[in-house]
C-alpha cells in the first residue's frame, strides 16, 4: 500500500489507482467506439474512393486519392428524389410542430373539460402501426384526389406526427409556471394571443426537439412515399432503394447515395441539436 503515493490533482483526494483506472476506462471506450464506427468508416471511405479502386478485397484500405466521382455518378439519379424530400419534409415538420405546439398548449395550459381524455386519444395515434392504416389511407387519399402529389404526403406526415409533437409540447408547457399564463390573461390576452405572444416565444427548445424528430421521420419514411406518390414525386428513400436494389449492386454508388441521403438529417441535428437535450430534459423532468 505504501508503494504508490496518493495521486494528486484538482485539489481532490483520489485513490492511488485512479490514473490507471481512468486510462483503462478510456481504452475500453475507445475500442467500443471503433467497433461501432466500423460501418461508418466503410461507408465513408468507399464513397470517397474512385470507382476503379473499389473492390471487396480492398474494402478496408484507405483510398489512394480522395475522389468525388461516386457522388457525381449517383447525384443525377437522386436529385429529383432529394428535391421532393426537401419539399415534403420541411413543411411537414414545421406544420406538425406548430400544430403540436397549439395542441400541447391547450392540453396543458388552457385546459378544457376532458382535456386528459383528448390527450389520451391523440397519444393513441402513436401506437397504431403504419401497416394497419395503409389501405384505408390509400383509399381516402385516392378518393380525395390527394394521391400522387406531395401535398397528400405532407398531410399524412403532419397528421402522423401530431401525437409525438403534441406530447413533446404538452410536456414542455406543463413545466411552465401557471402564473405566467395567468399574468397574460389578466393583462388582457385571450387564448390565441397568450399562445402567440407568451407561450410560443419560450418554446424554441421544444421546437428543436419536435423539428428534429419530425424531419428525421418524414425524411426517412419509405412506405408512405412509395405508396402515395407518383414516380416523379418519389422521395429520396425510394430513389435510394432503386439504386441499392438493382440486380448487380455497385456498392460504391450505394454508399455514396446513402451518404447523400442522410446529410440533411445530420444537418438538421447539427443546427438544432444544442436545443435537443435541453428540450428533452425540460420535457422529462416536469409533467
Amino acid at each position, binding site marked *: 500500500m505504501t508503494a504508490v503515493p496518493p495521486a494528486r490533482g484538482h485539489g481532490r483526494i483520489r485513490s492511488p489507482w485512479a490514473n490507471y483506472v481512468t486510462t483503462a476506462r478510456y481504452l475500453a471506450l475507445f475500442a467500443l467506439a471503433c467497433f461501432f464506427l466500423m460501418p461508418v468508416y466503410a461507408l465513408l471511405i468507399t464513397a470517397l474512393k474512385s470507382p476503379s479502386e473499389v473492390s471487396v478485397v480492398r474494402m478496408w484500405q484507405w483510398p489512394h486519392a480522395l475522389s468525388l466521382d461516386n457522388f457525381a455518378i449517383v447525384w443525377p439519379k437522386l436529385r429529383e428524389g432529394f428535391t421532393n424530400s426537401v419539399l415534403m419534409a420541411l413543411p411537414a415538420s414545421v406544420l406538425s410542430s406548430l400544430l403540436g405546439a397549439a395542441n400541447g398548449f391547450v392540453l396543458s395550459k388552457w385546459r378544457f373539460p376532458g382535456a386528459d381524455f383528448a390527450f389520451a386519444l391523440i397519444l393513441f395515434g402513436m401506437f397504431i402501426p403504419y401497416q394497419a392504416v395503409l389501405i384505408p389511407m390509400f383509399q381516402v387519399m385516392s378518393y380525395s384526389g390527394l394521391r400522387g402529389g406531395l401535398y397528400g404526403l405532407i398531410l399524412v406526415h403532419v397528421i402522423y406526427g401530431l401525437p409525438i409533437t403534441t406530447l413533446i409540447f404538452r410536456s414542455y408547457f406543463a413545466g411552465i*409556471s401557471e*402564473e*405566467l399564463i*395567468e*399574468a*397574460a*390573461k*389578466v*393583462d*388582457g*390576452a*385571450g387564448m*390565441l*394571443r397568450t399562445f*402567440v*405572444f*407568451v407561450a410560443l*416565444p*419560450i418554446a424554441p427548445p421544444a421546437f428543436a426537439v419536435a423539428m428534429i424528430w419530425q424531419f428525421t421521420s418524414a425524411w426517412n419514411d419509405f412506405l408512405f412515399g412509395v405508396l402515395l406518390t407518383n414516380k416523379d414525386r418519389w422521395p429520396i428513400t425510394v430513389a435510394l432503394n432503386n439504386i441499392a436494389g438493382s440486380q448487380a449492386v455497385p456498392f460504391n454508388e450505394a454508399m455514396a447515395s446513402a451518404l447523400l441521403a442522410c446529410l440533411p438529417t445530420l444537418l438538421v441535428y447539427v443546427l438544432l441539436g444544442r436545443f435537443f437535450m435541453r428540450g428533452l430534459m425540460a420535457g422529462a423532468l416536469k409533467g
Partner: protein
Amino acid sequence: MMSMSEPAAATSAAAASSLARPRAAGIRLEQVGKRFRGGVDAVRELDLAIEPGEFIVLVGPSGCGKSTVLRMIAGLEEVTSGRIFLGSDDITSELPQRRDVAMVFQSYALYPRMTVRKNMAFGLRMRGTPRAERDRRVAAVARTLGLEPLLERRPAALSGGQRQRVAMGRAIVREPRVFLMDEPLSNLDAKLRVTVRAQLTQLHHRLGVTTVYVTHDQIEAMTLGQRVAVLRDGRLQQFATPQALFREPVNLFVAAFIGSPSMNFVSATIAGGQVRFAGHAIALPPDSPLVTADREVILGVRPTAFGPAGVAGWAELAVKPVVIEELGDERYVFFDLEAPRVDTEATRAAFDARGSDDALLLPDEARARFTVRLPADLPLALGQALTVSLDPRRLYFFDPRTGSTLA
C-alpha cells in the same frame, strides 16, 4: 385571427390617459363561495365591501382561502356561488382579460422573452392602446420606479428586487381600477421587504388605486392595510382596521394571530367578580360586563398589558422568569404558569400561520407560558422571583367552546 373584441376595455383604457386616481373603483363580494372539484370549500359565504381607493389586506394561515378570493376577483378562478361587483358592474362571470384589474404575482410572472419595456407595455398592447401612449406611460412609470436603466433588459438579467419592481410597474402602467397583489414581497429578503413595504404604502397614497393584498404575514397585514380581513378555513373572521383587530379581536383566532409577540392565553374561571387562573386571582374592574358572571373562560393578555410592580390600580403577579430577551429599550420576559397550555384549534391555527409550529426546540411545553414586555432598566434575573403588574382593563375573555370573545 387575433380578436380585438374588447371595445369596452380598450376605450376605457384609452380614456384613462392621466393619473389613475379618479378611476379607482370599489369591490363588493356578496355571499361568495368557492367549492373546488372534489368538494373542498375554499371560501364560504364571504361578504366584503371594499371602498374605492382603499388598501385592504387578506390575511390568514395557508389554505384559508385568501388567494382564492384574490383569484376570483381577478377572474382566474370561477365563483361557485355569490356575486362580485367592481364598481357598479357585476363581473362575476366576466373573463379575466375583460376585467380592468392588474395583478402582481408571487413569482412576478414576467414574460421571459420580452424586455422590461415590452413586459410593461404588454397589457396596454393587448388592450389596443396606441403606441405613442404606451411609450409615454411606460416611460413615466419607469421614471417613478427607477427602472429606466433596465428597460432594454430581459427578466433573467435582473435581480430579485428589480424583478419585483418590474412586476409592480407592469401593473401600474395599466392604470387599472384595482390592483391585486398575491404575496408580492415573499420572495424578497427580510430587509428589502421592510423597505418595499413602506414604499408600497407611499405608492398607494400617491396613486389611490383600490388595492387587495394577500399575505400570510400578520405584520405585513397590519403595516400595509387600511383595513384587514382575517380569514380562516374559508370564512371571514373579522374585517376591520389594524387598530380594531388588535384592540377588539372578535375571537380567539384573531386574538392569537394578530400582534407580535402574540397574546398570552390561560384557562381561567370567573366567579365573584374575580378571574382566577393558576393560583392567581385578579379583581375585575367594576364596569366589566363579566363582573357578575360565573363561568369557565380562556383569559387572554397582551405582553404589553404588563408593567413593573407598583402601578396604581393594576393587579400584581409573582412570577419566576425562565427566559429573558433583551431588545435594548425594553425586554421580553417569559415565565410559566401552573396551568396547562391553552391548545385549541384556533390557537393552533394561529400559531401555525405565524410559522412557529415546528420550530419548537423544547416540545414538552405543557404549561402555559406568558411573555411580558418590561422596561430594560427593571432589575431582574433568570429564576429569581419577580413581581409584575397587570392592567385589569386589558384582559380579554373567550368562550372555551366557541372561541368567541366574551364582552
